[in-house]
């Protein structure tokens, strides 16, 4: 989104929660020329071109999703930047970071530029994450400096973890020099061949080969070790799903606070036991884990260890999912259900304060990838705002999803908390 509204918009009557600005109070907010022009107690701001009545609603900095697959270039039959960002807006996200495992892989500055081109039709901010190695083959590092200059916010070989110790060390060294985060999909793929769910009693019963918790934890342990040795290394671990990986991350963060990680809504909302009848809408990587792992994720989200909730929105066409579980594609959509799942499971059920949940969608992600001027509504910040009703009960209907794909396990779920408006650069891009 390059353009912004020239006129001013006053959001009034709402309850403003801005964890970065330490605000949790009734406040009005004036957006002007793409920025936050003013924040003041109710009824103090006069003279706006347009007004948004936010009475009874929470007004928050625009949400940021660190992990989405929008499938461009090359897989437009699953999703496009246009459709994916409409779904993002419906979920309250004003910024999304796109994964590079497209066709071809986003491993050059040209592709980063192409992704950011307004011609792609994005309705929210798109921040590309580029490949860490050429064609994500795990052998030769990409040109981090050129990718960063082109607008990439991080590098990763998501889906294909960097297994080689030396390559990972080099990535962290170069990333450290450039202040560029290296995102790791932590999975020792040598241990997970032919696997389609979490290894345990349930996978044994179902006759499915299982991915062990160790396949995630060993890579996280190695990466944390490297990130503790390499000066200024910035390691971000994607979609952490096991208690064992969490232990290594907690230890690492004490030495290097620039180690960050995200947790997905499905890893705090579901466990391996939720899959029924070989329904591939429960198949993703990392897989749904044990109840103990899920509890560990809830703790990490509540106590501040986790930096962000990220969706790992992974759209797939019906023909890639309606098949044998073991052959179906990994991944589920998640943009439109993330906030409601967080409120339903973390806030209502696990009593995590709303402020903390908002932090996981705003200030937290900003710290991971240095998205300056976002994740807060302090004066001068970008006019990205998410307005939601934390008490609204609704039922998610996958067939009405705005994503091009409907592969979600949350169809028919009764949820609490609904996005009512998403504002990007001062423009309302979604209103529910």
């Amino acid at each position, binding site marked *: 989104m390059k353009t912004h509204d020239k006129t001013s918009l006053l959001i009034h009557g709402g309850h403003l929660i801005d964890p970065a600005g330490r605000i949790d109070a009734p406040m009005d907010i004036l957006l002007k020329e793409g920025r936050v022009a003013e924040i003041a107690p109710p009824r103090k701001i006069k003279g706006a071109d347009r007004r948004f009545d936010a009475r009874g609603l929470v007004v928050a900095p625009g949400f940021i999703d660190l992990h989405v697959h929008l499938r461009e270039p090359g897989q437009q039959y699953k999703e496009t930047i246009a459709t994916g960002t409409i779904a993002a807006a419906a979920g309250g996200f004003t910024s999304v970071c796109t994964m590079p495992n497209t066709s071809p892989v986003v491993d050059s500055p040209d592709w980063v530029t192409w992704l950011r081109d307004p011609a792609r039709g994005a309705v929210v901010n798109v921040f590309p994450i580029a490949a860490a190695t050429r064609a994500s083959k795990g052998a030769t590092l990409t040109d981090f400096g050129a990718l960063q200059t082109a607008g990439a916010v991080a590098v990763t070989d998501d889906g294909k973890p960097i297994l080689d110790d030396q390559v990972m060390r080099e990535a962290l060294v170069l990333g450290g020099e450039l202040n560029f985060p290296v995102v790791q999909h932590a999975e020792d793929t040598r241990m997970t061949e032919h696997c389609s769910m979490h290894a345990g009693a349930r996978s*044994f019963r179902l*006759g499915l080969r299982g991915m062990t918790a160790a396949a995630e934890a060993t890579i996280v342990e190695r990466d944390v070790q490297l990130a503790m040795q390499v000066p200024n290394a910035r390691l971000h671990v994607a979609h952490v799903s096991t208690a064992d990986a969490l232990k290594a991350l907690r230890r690492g963060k004490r030495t290097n606070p620039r180690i960050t990680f995200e947790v997905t809504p499905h890893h705090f909302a579901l466990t391996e036991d939720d899959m029924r009848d070989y329904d591939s809408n429960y198949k993703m990587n990392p897989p749904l884990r044990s109840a103990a792992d899920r509890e560990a994720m809830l703790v990490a989200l509540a106590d501040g260890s986790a930096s962000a909730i990220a969706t790992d929105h992974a759209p797939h066409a019906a023909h890639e999912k309606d098949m044998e579980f073991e052959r179906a594609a990994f991944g589920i959509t998640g943009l439109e259900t993330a906030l409601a799942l967080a409120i339903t499971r973390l806030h209502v059920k696990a009593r995590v304060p709303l402020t903390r949940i908002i932090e996981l969608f705003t200030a937290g992600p900003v710290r991971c990838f240095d998205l300056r001027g976002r994740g807060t509504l302090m004066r001068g910040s970008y006019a990205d705002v998410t307005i939601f009703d934390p008490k609204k009960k609704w039922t998610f209907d996958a067939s009405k999803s705005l994503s091009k794909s409907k592969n979600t396990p949350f169809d028919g779920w009764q949820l609490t908390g609904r996005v009512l408006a998403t504002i990007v650069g001062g423009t309302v891009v979604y209103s529910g």
Partner: protein
Amino acid sequence: MNAARGSLLGIEVLDAAEIMRILKLARRMNPHRPRPLLKGRRIVLLFYEASTRTRSSFEIAAKALGAHTILIQSSGSSIEKGESLLDTGYTLRAVGADAIVIRHPNAGAPQVMAHHIDVPVINAGDGLHEHPSQALLDAYTILGNKKSFKGLQVAIIGDIFHSRVARSACHLLSKFGVRIILCGPPELVPDVAATLAPGVRVTRHIEDALRGTDVVMLLRVQKERLAGMKIDLPEYIARYQMTPARLKTAKKDAIVMHPGPIIRGLELTSEVADGAQSRILAEVQNGVPTRMAILARSMGKMR
């Protein structure tokens, strides 16, 4: 969509009473005295994996009941051209299949089929998951040799991890209170196997498995499914091969079973395979009446 009535997807979901009903029906079935219960019905045998026993006995069973059978195998059909499981299912339904018997290398494939297609689906073995008709014919065989399941102890020795036969057998026997001992090395018999059903335990020692055992079930090491797993075969033979000497540890009237194919000299010696206690060929024979019962049940002909 729920699976059509009469489907047989697995043993885990059946209760003991239903299992007994099927076994009783099987006892009334005689392959040599055909009963035209399914006269004119079309039964498709959809085999994505090699099979000798299961396929031929389903075919003979269907014919003994007067049904037509159509055999579809992955090679020589549209499956080879890339047709999906469900499209094959819709096609078979459209040509008038009254039931689909499916063997598939992926766990859960029959479930996926059954939830999309409104004809009874019979699982003839799905990946590592279940092989319900085998468990039923094994139960039939056991009851032909023992008074009842009461107080029985069954040892299942070999490659449990890769065995759908073992999983179905554990579910079935457990529902009747049978004590089940799984025996083999940790790679083939992980500790987690004991969580499969009540009354199941794991041991690494064959003598421990055999002591006091009424039924010895042997399983083949499924080399084609090892997926990179390394098994030291000489070591396996030394520790777990069933020999006449080892068999003496079991009860005097113990019977030896094996779902086949047997590999002589590996999981058992020829003396055991051909010995007086062996019921391996009886199992194959019992496959026909058992599968007649399964097919009759699939079309609502339980009497």
